[in-house]
């Protein structure tokens, strides 16, 4: 199965990037889970946790505030003016 190419970016640095099996984020309309092959989309994030599941099954969580999520051909970008791993 193809993997997602995820990067979590904040205003002054790239917080995390790598491959992942799934990304779960909270947008203004509710939680959304993204698996490989997701249609392209652009969503506004509601402040909160972004959970990234790695191909091996481990999980990474990051806090993102004021940002958005973009998905395009298996590349996922979580962009926030403030973001940090927790």
């Amino acid at each position, binding site marked *: 199965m193809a993997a997602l190419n995820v*990067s979590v*970016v*904040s*205003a*002054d*640095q*790239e917080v995390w990037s790598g491959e992942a099996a799934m990304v779960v984020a909270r*947008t*203004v*309309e509710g939680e*959304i889970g993204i698996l490989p092959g997701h*249609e*392209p*989309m*652009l*969503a*506004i994030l509601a402040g909160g946790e972004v959970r990234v599941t790695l191909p091996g099954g481990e999980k990474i969580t990051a806090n993102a505030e*004021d*940002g*958005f999520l*973009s998905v*395009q051909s298996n590349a996922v*970008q979580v*962009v926030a*003016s403030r973001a940090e791993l927790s």
Partner: protein
Amino acid sequence: MGAQLRVYRQKIKSAQTTKKITKAMELIAASRIQKAQARVTASTPYSRAITRAVSAVATFSNVDHVLTTEPETIERAAVVILTSDRGLAGAFNSQVLREAEQLAELLRSQGKDVVYFLVGRKAVGYFQFRRRASERQWTGSSENPEFELAKEIADAVLEVFLRDAADGGVDEIHVVYNRFVSMMTQTPEVVRLLPLEVVEGVEEPDATVQPLYEFEPDVETVLDSLLPVYIESRIYNALLQSAAAKHAATQKAMKSASDNADKLITDYTRLANEARQAEITQQIAEIVGGADALAAKK
């Protein structure tokens, strides 16, 4: 006697002191360039991601939005000028101010009023000296710009942008700043932020296949929240570029100042040596003359 020599020695000493200062400033600037450049590089993923997202919206939707559509008549334009707080940076500030003047002239010739937003003590001083009005000023943090500053500037600029033209709102936003090209070159640049002019890296949508692009909650809301962020990131990037360019300009200016001091020291040392020699020669001549006179008297 010896006055000439003393003057030269004083001048040498003063050039040496100056050189110490300029050399120290050069070294400080050189060490700061690295850091400033690292910050520019660190902020690129963010601005790249935002630019990509903005171009996605612009390409895959055709909504009319205040921030993207160009009004028919533009009455007023805002110009944001980024300078430094401190001088001693060669042409750094004067070139960006000159560029801003040219831009303002161009805008005025198109019948637009110009509203200024100034960043850095140098720009504020320049305007105060000429008794010109400006809308807002920010000073004190241009050397090490934080994202909060960019946010503040972006908020202020967007606020006047969204205001009606009748109430003193602007329809155009330009930013003038020094771009860090290399250690040796910093070029002043003018960028029109709003209305959006060119979005870098826009891919022409394929006419036959319309890709499905989903916006959540909807296109207008996404644009509403995306464009201010875009402006913030562009201003933040400009601030960082300007800071890096300032350090590079300081380093260059201080290097040539140190070189000049070196040259002065050599020149004055030569002159001082010459004066010393002349003095000794004169003393010998006097002694010889005196001895001759004594010998002739006998």
